[in-house]
């Protein structure tokens, strides 16, 4: 290629999903992809940390050590975050928020380990959005019973299509926001790694990793959990 266009730098950017292992199921050709591998590693890391945390908190000390401090700080931060949005309903949802916060955060940060972040695959973020959607609708039905559906015809019946689209836009926009942000970071990092000569690949991209993986990943995790809480609170808050 670069022979054809003299003067152009050839960037062999590599940021797509690759198949690692091929298998056949019900006549369909399926792949174990890099997303599965990265997610498996992330899950194992979270499991190890949680087992250590469980062990530490079982023998919790009066004067906490470093690890116990971090765990307590994490739980307290999430507790305060959920309580500030949901008020007295916080106890019911803090476990769910805590779980998805940790999962999405570790998925986003896995770019630092050289993995392709699992959240840069739409097949991961769409289920996350759909779980939130199911939770929002379930809470709405449990709280308002039949009024949950008649609310779609408020304030005037002619607004029904717009209200319906508004409900179904929730999982779409949630998942696309997370996917788009992490994907754009992955694409940028892939292009930069493809462009740089080998001796610059050490060190220089680290500064960009701080922005694209750590900063952007943490912000998007926070935003995903925040919006999930806001959407749920919309349905279950007392008028």
């Amino acid at each position, binding site marked *: 290629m670069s022979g054809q266009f003299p003067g152009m730098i050839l960037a062999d950017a590599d940021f797509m999903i690759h198949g690692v292992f091929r298998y056949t199921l019900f006549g369909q050709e399926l792949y174990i992809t890099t997303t599965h591998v990265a997610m498996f590693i992330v899950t194992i890391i979270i499991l190890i940390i949680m087992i250590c945390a469980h062990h530490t908190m079982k023998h919790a000390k009066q004067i906490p050590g470093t690890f116990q401090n971090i765990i307590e700080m994490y739980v307290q931060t999430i507790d305060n975050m959920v309580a500030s949005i949901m008020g007295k309903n916080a106890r019911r949802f803090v476990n769910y928020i805590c779980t998805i916060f940790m999962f999405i955060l570790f998925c986003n940060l896995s770019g630092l380990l050289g993995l392709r972040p699992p959240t840069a695959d739409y097949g991961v973020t769409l289920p996350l959005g759909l779980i939130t959607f199911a939770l929002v609708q379930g809470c709405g039905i449990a709280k308002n019973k039949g009024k949950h559906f008649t609310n779609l015809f408020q304030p005037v019946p002619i607004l029904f299509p717009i209200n319906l689209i508004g409900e179904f836009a929730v999982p779409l926009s949630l998942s*696309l926001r997370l996917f788009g942000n992490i994907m754009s970071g992955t694409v940028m990092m892939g292009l930069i790694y493809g462009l740089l000569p080998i001796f610059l690949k050490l060190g220089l991209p680290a500064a960009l990793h701080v922005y694209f993986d750590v900063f952007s990943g943490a912000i998007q995790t926070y935003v995903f959990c925040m919006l999930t809480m806001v959407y749920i609170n919309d349905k279950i808050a007392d008028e």
Partner: protein
Amino acid sequence: MIDGRALVLACSAVGAGLAMIAGLGPGIGQGIAAGHAAAAVGRNPGAKSDITSTMLLGQAVAETTGLYGFAVAIILLFANPLIGKL
């Protein structure tokens, strides 16, 4: 003479560039949000953490339209649906 496939690929590349103009709106919107947040912190420094979280939430929602443009650009570049129609 240009063959059809090359024309579709070239136009897809141009279209992907045009789709990223969608980044203009969120940029302006996020800037306005950040500016007002800075003004609010100046007026009431005690409420800094509340203002920051509200600003981040608003900016994330404002960013969505830009990400739709980004999704279109990525689809045009890496999963082109138009090539199959030739």
